[in-house]
């Protein structure tokens, strides 16, 4: 099975270890992974800023790069959601493009969803031991229905004790450019997330989207919390947490 890894722009720039973790997990699951080198960004920032036109080129580029893949997998519900639920909307009036693009979009998965729903993964290599609390990122949760998948995978790691926080499904305040445009509201939302996460007493807070994790970690550190670790689910599952 040929699986294209969509690394995502944020992982590429800010935390490559997540990309390598995803790669390791997919290979561990028995996939033949290809990583198209020319990939950049799914275009969601422009799409949500109200510039759908700018995204069309990126969607076509994606289509070309991942054309031969049986599946495309991204370690982000936000990017996978963008591709799967919004890309086809950009070409509603162009049936020829849609005919090629839409099937590819339908085969685009968020990492944990893919490992659970498609690969039916039995064992995970991760060895984290300690307590964890999980933040459900918005796009993954509401566009792709990702909630039980990461938890099911974490349950396969005997050392992990999952302690759910209050309001785990409430937005952390990231929202891409929202966090820049409305920094104060965004930081307040992150504050609530930090409060709820800290209240669980968990050693680490985990999630499936780097944007949210940078936001939450950024707020935790600014508040003076330098102990709660903030980890991506891929790093945990692959046993690569703490590696750059």
């Amino acid at each position, binding site marked *: 099975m040929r699986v294209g890894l969509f*690394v995502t*722009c944020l*992982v*590429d*720039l*800010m*935390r*490559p*270890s997540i*990309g*390598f973790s995803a790669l390791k997990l997919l290979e561990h699951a028995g996939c033949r992974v290809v990583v198209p*080198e*020319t*990939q*950049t*960004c799914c*275009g969601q920032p*422009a799409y*949500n*800023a*109200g*510039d*759908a036109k*700018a995204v069309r*080129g*990126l969607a076509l*580029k994606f289509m070309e790069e991942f054309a031969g893949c049986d599946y495309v997998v991204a370690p982000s519900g936000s990017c996978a959601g963008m591709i799967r639920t919004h890309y086809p909307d950009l070409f509603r009036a162009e049936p020829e493009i849609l005919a090629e693009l839409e099937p590819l979009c339908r085969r685009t998965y968020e990492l944990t969803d893919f490992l659970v729903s498609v690969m039916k993964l039995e064992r995970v290599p991760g060895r984290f031991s300690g307590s964890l609390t999980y933040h459900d990122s*918005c*796009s993954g949760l*509401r*566009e792709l229905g990702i909630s039980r998948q990461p938890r099911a995978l974490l349950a396969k790691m005997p050392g992990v004790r999952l302690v759910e926080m209050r309001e785990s499904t*409430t*937005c952390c*305040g*990231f*929202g*891409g450019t*929202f*966090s*820049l*445009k*409305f*920094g*104060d*509201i*965004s*930081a*307040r*939302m*992150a504050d609530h997330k930090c409060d709820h996460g800290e209240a669980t007493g968990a050693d680490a807070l985990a999630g499936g989207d780097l944007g949210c994790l*940078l*936001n939450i*970690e*950024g*707020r935790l*550190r*600014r508040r003076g919390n*330098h102990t709660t670790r*903030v980890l991506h689910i891929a790093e945990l599952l692959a046993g690569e947490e703490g590696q*750059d």
Partner: protein
Amino acid sequence: MECSAGEFKHRAAQKLGDVKLQAALRRLQDKFVDGRAAALAELDGFDSLADAAAAVRERALADLDGYLLRFEREAIARGAHVHWAETGADANRIVVEIAAAHGVRTAAKSKSMVSEECGLNHALEQAGIRVTETDLGEYILQLAQEPPSHIVAPVVHKSKEEISELFHEKHHTPRKTDIAELCREAREVLRPAFLGADMGISGANFLVAETGSAVIVTNEGNGRLVTTLPRVHVVITGIEKVVPTLEDLATLLRLLPRSATGQAITNYVSLLTGAKGERDPDGPEQMHVILLDNGRSRLLGDELQSILRCIRCGACMNHCPVYQNVGGHAYGWVYPGPMGSVLTPAYQGLENALDLPHACTMCGACGAVCPVRIPLPDLLRRLRERQTERGLRPWRERLALRLWAWTAKRATLYAVGTRAAAWLLARAGGKDRLLHRLPGAAGWSAGRDMPAPPGRTFRDLYRERGRR
């Protein structure tokens, strides 16, 4: 009501610092969010019911003029008068004319967001008519001279203590702190206003085309008194509120209170059909229904049409993490939260509410809870696109986006740019590997650090690995 949505940012900042408001918003969330969840859990199949409710509303909108004309015919046949108002000012004028024709000096009002839209109270006072709000929340706001901050719980921003102080000051009575006592005091003040009012003014949650009825869904008894005691009853409502049949109404009534307050049904559901008939023991001698457009018909056939399905339950704002932190007044017009962020630019002009469609993280919580399936995030995104199309975004933002999109399409250039950025950010991270300041992103770094990247992009590391 005057629109001050342009001041959203500034207002929101104030509201974030308002400790009392923050406590009030927390209480609202606990009550309404948990209440809704519990009420819907009793009901099996929110999804299928919401689909049915959305279909009812779409059916009404698909033939809106037809249903409105049917409503008019049926209402007239039952002795009511029907008036059509294009703007808020037209609606106000019609009410004032009705008042003049019937020698009305005093009016008692039950809750109506549409009348807030028109600024009706002000217009009536100008015409020398004394208006008393009789919904407890609206009455408090009338005393405090403030607009509502929520469409279902208008006074949610005020604490019990503030209300106690207000009553003490305005009623010249001893301070009370017990909620029941405060309610009793309000009731005592309001009773004469009901009994003496020449005109009762209400909104309508729905209009039923097949019977010509106006439906109000309330929890306080005031709505009944306002619509039955005074000689003249005026209903003022939006043209989109019509539903074809009583059966359709029943579908919507299963969802409205559950979504709004977490109740299976409200204390009162009144179907007001025509003026007092010969054999009726009570009721108004005159019933007038004013159907307000005020921008609604412009949305028919538009990409934003689905917002007209709204049944004003308030669930979207109760679940909106932005509303939960800034409250309704920050939004600057009648309707706050996600539905308000669509309605305000739609009714008051895109350019007068530039921030509202952007004051949203696209988290999708609103769309998920909306009982009539309005795709609120999509509508907000569509409004953002219109701002772009009409050149209403700041040029810096446009330039940055364009430049970024242009680069993202050129893999080699993009790789060079990100390689440099990764290197720079890593260097700037310092010993604690945190960026305390981000040039050009003050919005981020005012309240957050940025965890620094390790310094090499995935792309470069991957290629290197391949070579090894």
